């Protein structure tokens, strides 16, 4: 990997968020998501094809950002059969509708249940946060980070953000839970959270473990070439051996019946 490119990320400080939804509005405007993106509480769990970012209330109170986590080793990227989900060198997970065939495996695989689908379209696409990649390329901030009036969102290099996060945890240990969410879960993600309330509810069904999801399938997929060659060789071998034996048996049988006739 090229050394010049940085692994970027966004640090979310849940304690600073006041739930004003300015980030959601900015996201809708920047990504041209249309009128619907400005309507609050459109989908029961916050996100929809027109709403890539939502501020949801945690069960314990507090406003929490819900959006694509941009996992370092993303389940959706590994699940996509046609490479429509890709990861840029900066770690941003992007989607290419030109390749997608609409199997929705990425939606099933995402441990946070993030990707959304255009269910009302007859040519539907997967929709999700792009971390405003086009703006990043131009050297601008993601729209949500730029819009946040409370500095609850910080954009930067992931390693630097981790340092900032741990610094804040150290400075005010009573204010935060002693954990940076996104540092290790499913192998780490570009989105990092520090919070005063547990964020396990953001997982599709509770917090996922620390193992990166693609490894779950690679355990099997890695064996495919061996299984292919093994099965082919085994079948050819069995065919040949059993065939030979049967020929030999038949010959012996013919011989014995011949000899019994002779006697």
């Amino acid at each position, binding site marked *: 990997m090229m050394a010049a490119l940085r692994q970027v990320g966004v640090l979310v400080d849940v304690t600073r968020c*006041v739930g004003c939804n300015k980030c959601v509005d900015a996201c809708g405007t920047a990504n041209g998501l249309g*009128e619907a993106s*400005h*309507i*609050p509480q459109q*989908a*029961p*769990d916050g*996100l929809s094809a027109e709403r890539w970012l939502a501020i949801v209330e945690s069960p314990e109170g507090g406003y929490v950002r819900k959006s694509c986590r941009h996992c370092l080793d993303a*389940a959706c990227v*590994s*699940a*996509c*059969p*046609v*490479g*429509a989900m890709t990861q840029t060198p900066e770690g941003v997970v992007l989607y290419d509708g030109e*390749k*997608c*065939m*609409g*199997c*929705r*495996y990425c*939606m*099933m*695989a995402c*441990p946070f*249940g993030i990707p*959304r*689908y*255009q*269910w*009302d*379209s007859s*040519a*539907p*696409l997967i929709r999700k946060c792009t971390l405003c990649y086009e703006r990043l390329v131009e050297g601008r901030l993601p729209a949500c980070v730029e819009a946040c009036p409370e500095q609850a969102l910080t954009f930067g290099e992931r390693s630097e953000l981790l340092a900032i996060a741990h610094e804040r945890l150290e400075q005010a240990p009573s204010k935060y839970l002693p954990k940076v969410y996104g540092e290790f879960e499913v192998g780490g993600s570009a989105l990092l959270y520090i919070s005063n309330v547990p964020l396990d509810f953001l997982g*599709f*069904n*509770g917090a*996922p473990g620390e193992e990166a999801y*693609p490894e*779950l*399938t*690679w*355990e*099997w*997929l890695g064996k*495919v070439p061996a*299984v*292919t060659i093994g*099965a*082919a060789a085994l*079948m050819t071998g*069995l*065919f040949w051996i*059993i*065939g030979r034996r*049967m020929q030999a048996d038949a010959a012996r049988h013919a011989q014995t019946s011949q000899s019994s006739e002779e006697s």
Partner: protein
Amino acid sequence: MNNTLRTLIKDGLWAIVFAGTVAAVIRFASGLGAGSGLNDVTPWGLWIAFKLGFVALAGGGFTLAAVVYIFHIENYRPILRRAILMALLGYGSFIVSLIVDLGLPWHVYMPIISWQHYSVMFEIAWCVMLYFSVLALEFSPAILEHPWFKHPRFQKILHWLHKLTLPLVIAGIVLSTLHQSSLGSLFLIMPHRVHPLWYSPWLPYLFFTSAIAAGMMALVVEGFIIERWFKRGMHFDLLGTLGAWVALPLGLYLILRLSDLFLRGVLPGVLDGSWQSTLFLAEILIGGILPLVLLASQKIRESREGLLTSATLIIAGIISQRMSLSMFTMRQSTGLSYFPSVAETLIAFAIPAAAILIYLFFAENLALLDRENPTRALDTSTSIDRLAFANQDTPGRAIFARRSGLATFVIALMLPTMLNLTVTGGDRSVNPVQAARGWETLLINGNDSGYVVRFPHSEHQERLTDELGTKEAACTTCHHLNHPDDEATSCSECHTDYYQSSSIFDHPHHQQALGGNEGCTECHTDEHLRQSPEICKDCHETMVAQEGQRTFNSFALSYTDAMHGRCLECHGQKATELNKPELELCGTCHTSDQGEVNQVGGLSGN
């Protein structure tokens, strides 16, 4: 089984196929949202569950091919061709179902040109593609043996196909091994969705062994049905031995499944009394261990009822495993729940119905039922009932008329559903704004909750007049779009919904004023072009929709957004200018005093 019953069953299958076709039209015309119950939280449903079932029942194809060609057990040859056809139709159903399920089915070729070998789905795509081709080649001799293909050219192809048999068989076995197991690995990446009693890191092995068992037992059940339908021998002796051999894959499957649960410590969950645990127990005990015990007895195995019962139980158990894993016990997240829609269900059942009809067509017309004596199946004078297309009592034209009548009936029956399904969407809740009450101080019930913002209107008016010099300038600071002859239009006249934006342009009003439909051309200079009101464009350039746009550009923000927008901007400035930071705080306007509101009476409507 008599001819009337056969015709009725066929009519029923055709009816399902017609209904499914109508449902598929809805699904492709209006998208997956209208054609299925799938949603963002449950993007996979009934179609996936059925697909897993189709492929499991197709498992007999590669199993028997291995038995006959690789293990040289020739006495199974008479049922081999049936097994291949079952597999071919199973995979055909899988592919048709996939086309319906895919959001962009015209991109279905993408796995060929855009490789992503970390994806299980990619492997499955390739295996299905290749194995379906292999099956088609394996089955094509049955078609080429038909008298229609007497031409030497076809016979040459047939000759080559026979020579290719062994490589095809080996390819078929390898591909099946890979992707029967991969259908299980598909779910390895979703431990957060699959129920713990069905999830296992050994899913590939479970799927592979159970597919062999299900495929073998599908051949047994198929044999019984064929015997009933065609009054033909079904090689009971052979099927009976399948009943003995099935203990191997089925036993292995059960041992693997239970020992995995035990090793991972999930087994106690079996007894927690939830409906999932009951389903699991039924699946294992009734659909696995019970038939295994039954088949262990030679007496039961060799009785017709015993064999049929055991085979049916095994199939039910394995289909239950596939459907529970992928649908019934899939864990939901917050919010949306999933239930298959009518259209979705019809499509799901239409596909196997069509497969059965194709099977019957082949069985009636090809040398399928008795490999040893192919001509017998083609000979109308034997006991086989040649139905439908070749039945002497009902000529082809009558059958065609019957089916068209059936199709018309089914489509007419489904029309109301169709219309209902295609006219969905856009069903958002509306929260109409109530105008602010009060005089010098306005009570703005912005959240429609009774907690009002007390807005000192005259105070703002006076302050702004002092600051800006004229009263007019003061008013237009906030009242930005005045109606003609109106000093100050109230906010709620345009910002009509608390949370949603709404259109400012009152099209019905203009339409009426200009004389109804006569007046269109007053604005729309070209009546065939919606986007041509040149007159309006002169002044309201941004208000008129651009070419290809369906709504007017200019819409009023939601009431809440509009209020916040106007107030916050100014308050923010003043907070800095006057060094009064409290001006910017929410609590300055949003007081938590509800008592005074109720004094106003009827303000919040409660």
